[in-house]
């Protein structure tokens, strides 16, 4: 889902922050992508490498992706569970009253600079 545009957003934010803290170079960027976010991390990594290569401050920077699993909490039995194929039924008590607690993240966490 628009991994190139998302990679460009990451590059834009990181370049701006690097400029603000007067970094000479950015060596690595750590991001968090949820399993249920719709973002394909392989394509994102590929797009990021391509765009970083065109940026003097980001050239050669490593993109580290922390994948967040899709998990939900059951309101009935108060247990957390891993969501498979977006099916939100509690596998423990079979109730449907559940809410997603993780897996939709699309976040830039931090960067390593020099």
């Amino acid at each position, binding site marked *: *889902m628009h991994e190139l545009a998302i990679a460009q*957003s990451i590059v834009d934010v990181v370049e701006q922050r690097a400029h603000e803290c007067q970094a000479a170079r950015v060596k690595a960027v750590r991001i968090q992508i949820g399993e249920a976010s719709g973002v394909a991390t392989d394509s994102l990594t590929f797009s990021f490498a391509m765009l970083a290569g065109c940026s003097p401050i980001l050239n050669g920077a490593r993109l580290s992706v922390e994948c967040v699993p899709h998990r939900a909490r059951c309101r009935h039995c108060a247990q957390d569970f891993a969501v498979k194929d*977006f099916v*939100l*039924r509690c596998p423990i008590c079979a109730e449907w009253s559940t809410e997603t607690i993780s897996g939709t993240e699309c*976040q*830039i*966490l931090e*960067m390593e600079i020099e």
Partner: protein
Amino acid sequence: MPRVMIAQNILAPNEAIATEVRQALVKCQVRMLNIMSSPGAGKTTLLERTLARLREQVKIGVIEGDIETSADAARIEAAGAETVQINTRGACHLEAHMIRDALTELDLASLDLVIIENIGNLVCPAAWNLGEDLRVVVMSVAEGDDKPAKYPQMFAVAQVLIINKLDLLPHVDYDLEKVKRQVLAINPRLRLFEMSCRTGMGIEAWCAWLTTFSRGEC
């Protein structure tokens, strides 16, 4: 090597504009729907039938999203609604800034409800908050009965699903009960409407619900 914390949502710029849009709508007491589907599921025909039925009771403004042409806006204008056409010229989904700009061309003070007809695309629109109150997905029985499993995010983010073209059921391999089970497994709170915009079946129930929605009663 020094680490600098950033902690920023990558889609934050769109979220900020979507919030602006929401605040503007709340101020004018106008509700907004975002209708999404694959190309050809029947969004524009649904709008035509809805406008024909509700024109007197609910004042509706429409934002039409297409990659090219104003053909859909022309149809909706002919159906009697104030309409703004957005042509994205290649973008496959609408974004909040497009809606913010389109809303300036509608007379919000005179409207009860704004309906966005999103670009025909069962993937990308699901991820872009437009400031809407409600997301409606339209799916036709001519699209195969495995689409909820294949495109779960779209069904997960919606509040309403319209299963359209039911008049075609005798002519297609489509297990309606399987589809309903699949979508409710992904989104147990999804409200379902079964419809044929062609024959009119199911339009009355949809319009009755939409009327109460536009009044803030549900």
